[in-house]
């Protein structure tokens, strides 16, 4: 009997915590379809008058439509995924499987960059990229993308090294006895077997790039190049009450891709952070 009471109490506590955790998200959902008057007066989660017009108004709220901002964000996120997947896989293979001079030194440095706070580098990177002509037109996204193609996201290199250690070395050995070069081993043994680590990297790359704000704020200067997070901050500037509904509508839309990833890959995401200690 005591055991079952305890179970019920635990479940009740969890449900209360869950309600607190989900409330802001549900409130956001409700507010995005409330009229201007109801946002101020109706404290309930759901509106009395369903106002989908917020989405139309928000979409067209600025001189450039949100369609453009979403396309920009999607392009940055997809290219970030490609860059991280390719460059981190190459580096991880070298660290996990190949013997070369100073390997231990480079590996130690890579681990060191894991804890390097990214904000520290933003000013010199800005100065450097500006000198190269990469800030603003004609190549506004190079400062966001080039680092991703150079395996600077050490988390993913580390995650893949850890994963590759689990692939039996005998597979490499067998291929080598058959005369395979390190490139052939990479292509035919490591790449196919590393798919789970690649998928984890791809998902987290996408979500991080999609949510990233600091770098996009610093490097994007023209309205038509803005990504969704930078565009959302434009709503904050316009303090008028009428913008609240549209602002919530666009904020909600901006979370949809991440939410879809969460629904599709929930188990993988949760296990992904287990195996690597990655932050969500």
């Amino acid at each position, binding site marked *: 009997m005591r055991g079952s009471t305890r179970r019920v109490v635990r479940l009740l506590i969890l449900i209360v915590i869950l309600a607190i955790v989900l409330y802001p998200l549900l*409130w956001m959902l409700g507010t995005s379809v409330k009229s201007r008057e109801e946002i101020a007066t109706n404290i309930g989660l759901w509106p009395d008058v369903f106002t989908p017009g917020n989405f139309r108004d928000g979409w067209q709220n600025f001189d450039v439509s949100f369609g453009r901002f979403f396309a920009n964000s999607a392009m940055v996120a997809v290219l970030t995924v490609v860059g991280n997947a390719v460059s981190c896989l190459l580096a991880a293979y070298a660290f996990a499987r190949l013997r070369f001079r100073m390997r231990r030194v480079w590996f130690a440095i890579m681990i060191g960059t894991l804890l390097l706070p990214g904000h520290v580098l933003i000013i010199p990177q800005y100065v450097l990229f500006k000198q190269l002509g990469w800030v603003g037109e004609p190549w506004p996204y190079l400062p966001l993308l080039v680092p991703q193609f150079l395996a600077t996201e050490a988390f993913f290199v580390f995650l893949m090294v850890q994963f590759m250690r689990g692939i039996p070395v005998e597979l490499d050995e067998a291929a080598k006895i058959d005369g395979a070069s390190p490139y052939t081993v990479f292509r035919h043994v490591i790449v196919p077997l590393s798919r789970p680590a690649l998928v984890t990297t791809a998902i987290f790359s996408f979500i991080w790039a999609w949510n990233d704000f600091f770098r996009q704020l610093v490097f994007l200067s023209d309205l038509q190049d803005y990504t969704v997070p930078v565009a959302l901050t434009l709503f904050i500037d316009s303090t008028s009450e009428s913008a609240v509904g549209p602002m919530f509508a666009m904020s909600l839309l901006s979370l949809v891709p991440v939410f879809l990833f969460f629904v599709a890959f929930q188990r993988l995401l949760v296990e992904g952070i287990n195996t690597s200690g990655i932050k969500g």
Partner: protein
Amino acid sequence: MSTAPPAAVPAGPASPGPASRRGRGGPRRRENFAGYVFLSPWLLGLMGITAIPMLLSLYLSFTNYDALSDFSEVDWVGLDNYRTMFTADPSYWHAVRVTVMFALIAVPLKLATALGVALLLNKAFKGVGLFRGLFYLPSLLGGSVALAIVWVNMFNRDGAFNSLLGVFGIEGAPWVNDPDWALETLMVLAIWQFGAPMVIFLAGLKQIPTELYEAASVDGANAWRQFRAVTLPMLSPVIFFNLVLETINGFQGFTSAFVLSNGTGGPVDSTLMYSLNLYIKGFTELQMGYASAMAWVFLVAIALITVVLFSTGRFWVHYADGEDR
């Protein structure tokens, strides 16, 4: 480069796995070459994106570079930026205080929440996976501009939180516009994202052998005693790992403070986090030399904090293999 002893990562000894031993001569040299071929993008990134910018910012920190003038017109000002920072810029120390306060309160509360919920979820029951997934969701969404916008509006004078308090007849503060409360609302937003450390705690809890609990209850230890004597010490490496990660993240808070204050650090500088201050100095006021000095002090501070965490860790982190790290 911040110091990162390999023990930072509980997933195993942080050295590359043993590669196959090759004979002398040809194949070995070939593998050495191949190693550098595969490593080349990373090496290029290490040089161009990390190392050279770090040195450049060290140089800039001794100049009055303002982002507008040419490099040839930059003046070497010696230690002036550092002197100003430490002795003549009250906003600098204010930002340090705000950031330390934020990390000191939000990080322990976030970890305690994560551990508490992980303990509740560490029993198999129907729906445990659903709870785990939904608790994790805020960690994926919470760092975004969108959620910061939601938060600011929820804690407005006439936001949802005050409406809720109104139901109980309590008149709430204008939280986000109140210098006494603005930072606290950001702390709550950080704590709300407890899911990521929770998942790591859950994985750690699963690793604790059940025999230890059985032995403890044979000895008559109650639940609290078992938690103190078995769970906490066995979980200490994971607690330590989460503590290091969350502390470093906590010190870098930016997005929520930017959204709350529209990039100013207000109200009355109450949300002037270090990173936000750095952004304002570097990109709003264009004092890039000064902001570079701030960045270097930040880097050294983060490194020192990491070192301190690791040195105190020796006294309370218990490794099952008995190895002293």
